[in-house]
Structures are given as structure tokens and as C-alpha cells.
């Protein structure tokens, strides 16, 4: 099976590489202690079972018996301990260390048991253990994790192992016969590195790659209009764990005024964005969680499009068109601001639609789309912006402390909109220490409700993830489970007559 990605991973030790490209490949090679099942509940990956102590501060993982690395070496709790020590090591510059630094003590009573204790109950703990890929201690001991050759020729425990890595061209994985989870069906997973999206799509059209992520236009306009593509490709759509939003810089006037924020929210036609930008392939949201999951509060509904209400609210806030130029003024100053966004077609287009709707109610909006690195360093870190259109991609745990808590506003932290609400802070703190799933759910439902009412951001939409897959790939779970189209990909197979008998010369 041949896929493609636009960027090459720098290495396959995800904890230090940190790129999504690295994660995509490494997750086929390594296991974590836990993983999510089809319905997004945690189940054992390397762990057979786990128990949580009564005071909720200690978790004990029992590993499955007879685990081995692809090189035949046994995989034990010592490897897990080694990996934990590695990720929190001073010298390791991992972007993901913070979760594991909360672990006060980790120990291995025997080769199959791994025990961690926290200072206080930490609800996202289990989720964090599904994110840490366990590395082989016997190959990495004494190595510099940042420069080790292991990153380019890893030995793992999952369904696949690295076969060939042709720098800048492709990464070829083949079935790991010693996989701790049993054999995978497809012999080879090949990922080609094709930086340009249009070139990637041409490769898909020419049947040189089997799968590719799509944008709405390719999904609903181009492929359906081409019989030869329809014949070969299955299309999948699934709701991702991400959403697009418009965020106010709450430290700038007039966005500190809730009436202004609400007015803007009412003035934006979210359905128009979904129809115009996502060609209908997105949904409205009212909380920062994937709709349909337990964390998403179904009782909430988005602000409807209501220009009259918006105008009334703005009038209340003191914005009146005194010189009848079509733009509102307050204290003699016209209501004008700039929306900045990064170079993402969907976000740019959303901003353009917002611009028009706000003009309707008398707000003069300018737009700038900026290349990512400059965007972050020049605007986000410095707080030098009025309004952003951005997206959040989220994990499966509902904890969003780093995004909304008032303590997370330092340059480079994620509450860059400067949100400060004591009620929200308290709910976030509670949510982190509450382990009972139902109580936790209530906390986050309340959190989402307060957030919606306070309106620090405008939820624009949650777009569907769109994928094309060649019909030769079979065994894909249908209908798509909550875990996504890629779930259980080790069970996918290619029937003999449909295989590329030799991977065609082109």
C-alpha cells in the first residue's frame, strides 16, 4: 500500500521529532502502553491491564506476557521505565515532557509491572500513557537521543518495521513478523514524500499512490466529475478532532466588551462558511469538543446568524454610524480591525466571508494571511493582533488547561488570546483532578457552557477529514468508527488479483 506525505520526518523517535510526519510513520513501528479502541475508549496496547489505586494517585500497568522487540530481544517493564526516564531527562528536548514530569515516582517491581505515582490525582494521566511510544532500552542506552542513528533505523514492536528509508524520496515499512499484536495483513507500507499537493493529486490520478487526504473541492467536485477516478477510488469522510475558530485578542479594545464579541458572533453566518468554504463538508459546533463524543455538551447550540441582534448589541456598546459612511464609530473612531490567519485555504476563505458579513453591520475588516513561522513569532507570541482565524487540533482527553487557563498566557503559551475567567479556571482545575468519568463529563459540559456564553472565540466550524483510498485496499471498517477511517488498518488487505504485481515502474 502506497501513501504520500508532504514533509519528511526528521526521525522516527516521536518524542523528540515532534512532527506529525514522524508520528504517522512511527505509530506503525512502536507501541504505547495503552491505545484507543474503535469507540475511543482506552484499551491495552503493550499493557494487558491497569489498575488505579484508591487514592487515585497511583497507576499500575501489567504488561502482556512474552513481548519482544523486532530484533528478538524481550520487551519488559525496564523498557517502559527507560522510556519514561528518557522523556523527562533534562537533556531530552521533548515538546511532550510536561505530562510525564508530573509523575513523582515510577518503578518496576518485576519485569511485567510498571507503576507510576502522582502527587495528586491527574485525570489526563491515562491518556498521556497512550501517547508515549515505548523505546527499546537495549539499543538506546547511553546514546544521545537527538543524534542517534536509531532515529533513522528504529527497532520497534508494532505491526511494521522499517525496511528502507530513501532520504527525501520514500520510507518503506514491511511486516514485523515478531509484532506483539500479531501479524498485519498488508506486506508493505510505503510512504512517498511529495511536497507539492497538486503533484500528489496527479500521482493519485495516475494510480501511483493508493491514498491521499483531500480538500472539499477535490472531494465533492473533481473526483465525482471523473468517471475513471470514481471507478478506482473510495471516498471517506470523518469528523476530526479539530475545529476552526475566530479568536479575539481580549486585551485589545473593544474586544474586552462581551457585547461586542457577541455582536460579532451573531453577525457571522456560520452555515454560509460551511457551505461556501467546506462545500457542506463541515458542521456547526458550540463547544470545543468533537460533536457526538461524551465531552461535547449536546444541549448547547451555536449563536444563530442574526444581523439585527448584532447591530442592537453594537449600539448598546456605543458603536453608532455618526458620519453615515457605513462604518460604525465610537468616540469618533471607526470600528476597524485586522483578521490574521496562516496560509490555509479554508481559513483564508472563512476570513473573507467573515469580512463581508461584518461589513454588512458596519465593521471594517482587513485580512492578512501569513506564512506559519512568521505568523507565530511575529503576531501570536507578541500578542500583536486583533483577531485571528485559526484552528485547534485536540487530543482525546478533554483537558484544555493549556488553552484556556488564565495562567497560560506567557509568550509562547497557548492562551494567547488572553482569556481570563475565574469560573473557567476553576472548572479546568477540577477537571484535571476528577477521575470519575461522569463527574468529569459534567465539569466539561459546564465548562463549554460558560465558554459559549462568554464568547472569547467564535466557533466557525468543524470540517470533515476527507480521504481517498484506492478500491484495492479492502477490509476498511464500515461505517467508519469514531476512531476514524484508519482504525484497525492492520486488518486491511489487498486481494491477490488487485495487487500491484510489481510496484509499477512509475
Amino acid at each position, binding site marked *: 500500500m502506497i501513501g504520500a506525505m508532504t514533509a519528511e520526518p526528521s526521525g522516527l523517535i516521536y518524542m523528540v521529532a515532534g512532527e506529525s510526519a514522524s508520528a504517522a510513520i512511527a505509530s506503525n513501528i512502536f507501541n504505547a502502553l495503552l491505545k484507543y479502541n474503535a469507540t475511543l475508549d482506552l484499551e491495552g496496547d503493550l499493557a494487558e491491564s491497569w489498575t488505579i489505586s484508591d487514592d487515585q494517585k497511583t497507576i499500575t500497568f501489567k504488561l502482556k506476557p512474552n513481548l519482544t522487540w523486532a530484533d528478538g530481544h524481550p520487551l519488559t517493564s525496564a523498557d517502559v521505565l527507560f522510556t519514561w526516564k528518557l522523556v523527562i531527562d533534562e537533556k531530552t528536548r521533548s515538546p511532550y515532557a510536561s505530562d510525564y514530569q508530573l509523575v513523582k515516582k515510577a518503578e518496576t517491581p518485576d519485569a511485567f509491572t510498571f507503576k507510576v505515582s502522582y502527587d495528586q490525582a491527574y485525570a489526563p494521566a491515562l491518556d498521556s500513557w497512550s501517547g508515549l511510544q515505548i523505546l527499546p532500552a537495549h539499543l538506546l542506552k547511553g546514546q544521545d537521543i537527538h543524534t542517534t542513528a536509531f532515529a533513522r533505523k528504529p527497532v520497534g514492536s508494532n505491526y511494521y518495521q522499517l525496511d528502507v528509508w530513501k532520504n527525501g524520496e520514500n520510507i518503506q515499512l514491511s511486516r514485523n513478523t515478531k509484532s506483539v499484536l500479531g501479524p498485519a495483513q498488508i506486506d508493505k507500507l510505503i510512504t512517498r514524500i511529495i511536497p507539492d499537493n497538486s503533484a500528489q493529486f496527479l500521482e493519485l490520478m495516475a494510480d501511483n499512490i493508493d491514498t491521499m487526504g483531500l480538500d472539499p473541492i477535490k472531494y465533492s467536485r473533481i473526483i465525482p466529475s471523473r468517471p475513471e477516478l470514481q471507478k478506482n477510488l473510495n471516498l471517506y469522510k470523518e469528523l476530526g478532532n479539530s475545529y476552526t475558530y475566530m479568536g479575539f485578542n481580549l486585551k485589545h479594545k473593544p474586544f474586552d466588551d462581551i457585547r461586542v464579541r457577541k455582536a460579532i458572533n451573531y453577525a457571522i453566518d456560520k452555515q454560509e462558511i460551511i457551505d461556501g468554504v467546506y462545500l457542506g463538508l463541515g458542521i456547526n459546533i458550540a463547544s470545543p469538543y468533537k460533536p457526538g463524543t461524551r465531552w461535547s455538551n449536546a444541549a448547547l447550540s451555536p449563536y444563530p446568524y442574526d444581523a439585527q441582534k448584532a447591530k442592537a448589541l453594537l449600539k448598546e456598546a456605543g458603536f453608532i454610524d455618526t458620519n453615515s459612511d457605513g462604518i460604525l464609530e465610537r468616540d469618533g473612531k471607526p470600528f476597524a480591525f485586522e483578521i490574521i490567519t496562516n496560509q490555509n485555504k479554508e481559513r483564508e476563505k472563512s476570513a473573507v466571508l467573515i469580512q463581508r458579513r461584518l461589513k454588512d453591520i458596519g465593521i471594517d475588516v482587513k485580512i*492578512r494571511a501569513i506564512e506559519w513561522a*512568521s505568523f507565530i513569532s511575529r503576531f501570536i507570541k507578541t500578542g500583536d493582533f486583533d483577531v485571528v482565524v485559526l484552528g485547534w487540533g485536540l487530543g482525546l482527553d478533554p483537558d484544555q488547561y493549556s488553552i484556556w487557563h488564565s495562567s497560560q498566557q506567557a509568550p509562547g503559551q497557548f492562551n494567547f488570546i488572553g482569556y481570563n475567567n475565574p469560573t473557567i479556571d476553576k472548572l479546568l482545575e477540577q477537571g484535571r483532578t476528577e477521575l470519575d468519568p461522569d463527574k468529569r463529563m459534567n465539569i466539561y459540559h459546564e465548562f463549554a457552557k460558560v465558554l459559549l456564553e462568554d464568547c472569547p472565540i467564535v466557533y466557525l466550524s468543524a470540517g470533515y477529514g476527507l480521504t481517498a483510498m484506492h478500491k484495492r485496499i479492502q477490509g476498511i471498517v464500515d461505517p467508519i468508527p469514531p476512531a476514524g477511517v484508519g482504525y484497525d488498518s492492520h486488518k486491511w488487505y489487498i486481494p491477490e488479483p488487485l495487487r500491484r504485481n510489481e510496484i509499477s515502474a512509475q
Partner: protein
Amino acid sequence: MRIDVIKKALSNPLALAGFIIILTIFLLAMLAPVISPYDPDEINVKAILLGPSWIHWMGTDGLGRDVLSRMLHGGRISLLVGLVAVGISTAIGILLGALAGYYRGWVDTLIMRLVDIMLSIPSFFLILAVIAFLTPSIINIMIVIGLTSWMGVTRLVRAEFLSLAEREFVQASRTLGAKDMRLIFTHLLPNSLTPIIVSAVLGVASAVLMESGLSFLGLGVQAPQSSWGNILTDGKEYIQFAWWLSLYPGMAILITVLGYNLLGEGLRDALDPRSGSNR
């Protein structure tokens, strides 16, 4: 520039064609607000990606905006980028070239070393890095292209000055005690004007192309502001489907750059003393 040179240049059919192309494109760009059938920013989500028709001559884009109107307005930006960038590089080139050619000695050595250094750095790398680091904007793009393409003009002006300085009329004014600045501005510069103009005309062509290349890499004129480069880049994703999104801007760039090149070469030919002789 001397009238006879222009006359001679335009007697060359290719140069004439180039001249007409540029004139037409300039007129279209100047008149864009008047002749555009639609507001280039007017959205119509019900008319997304329509092919060319009598209503939209060049079709519509992903937000239902009229491509023809965006092309006309984008043309203004593309031409502006080209002209200002060349303006900057020509100004720098004339200044440094004049200094080097007139004063010679260590000034000359210093300036020519700088030219050599700048010439050996792959300039597209330099442009890419600087624009990315300063955040891409029309102003930055114009300045950076200008700042990285003055070396040719510098060499040219210096060479002209060196050769002119030997000529009698310059020698004469010098002995008559003419001031440096006066000499430079009244005698030397006007006499080297024509090759400078040729190189400027060719420079605009490269700058327009450069902007489209930067757009491809995401570092050109930024949306929602339209330029030919970023309309083309937007359209490249759908080259097999919404062909009108890439064909028209691609052709516009092609024709404009071609026009400048033809005119520039025609002028250069006409200036060349050889071209009169019969061979």
C-alpha cells in the same frame, strides 16, 4: 532616450509586438476599476467554480469571485511589484555604479567586491530567506527583490562611466572645473541612460516572474489581495478541473513577461551600432 532609437526599435516587429503588449496590459490595469465587470472581492457562494461563460468571461473562483475582475486588479499589483522593485534596484545600481565609475580607486574596488559577493550568493535563496523572515507583504517583496537585483545595473553604469570619462567632452568640462555632481548629472548620466532603460525593462520581466515563483512557495503577495502569481497558485490545485483558474493568470504572466523581454531586446538591438550595418 533618443527618438531615433525608439523608432529603430519599433521597426523590429518583435519589439513592436512587445511594446503593444505592454501598452495594452498597462491600459487594462490602469482601467481595472472602470472596466472590471464585478467587484474583485465580491463573493457569491452560490456560484463557486463556474467555468467561463457570458456572465463570467473567465469563470469564478473557489469563493464565487469573478476571475476576470480579479485578474484585472491582480495585474495592477503584479505590475506594481515589478515596477517598484526595478525602480529600487535601478536607483541603487545607478548610485553605486556612478560612484564606482566616477571616483574609481578604493571606492570602485569596494563597490565591485560587494557586487561580486552579492552575485555569488544564489539570489533566489536570499530573497526567499529575507521575505520569509520579514513576513511576506507587497512592500517587503518589492524591497527585497529590489535590494537583490541591483548588481547588473551597477556594473553597467560603471562601465559606461569609465568609457565616457575618456571622451573629450567630459575631459573638457573637467578641465573647465565642473563640479563632480554637476558632471555626473548633466553629462555622464544622460549619456548612459539608454542601456539603463533597457536593463530596467528586462528587470520588470524578471520581477513579475519572481513574484509568481514566490507565490508558488507561499511567500508572494498574500491573500486575499490578488496578484497574478497567487491566482495562479490558487488555481494550480485544480489544473485538471477548474482549468480557467490557472490558464488565464498563467497566460497573463507569460504574455506580460514576453512583452517586456521583446521590447527590451528590441531596444538593445536598436542601440547596438552593429544593427544598422548590413550583414
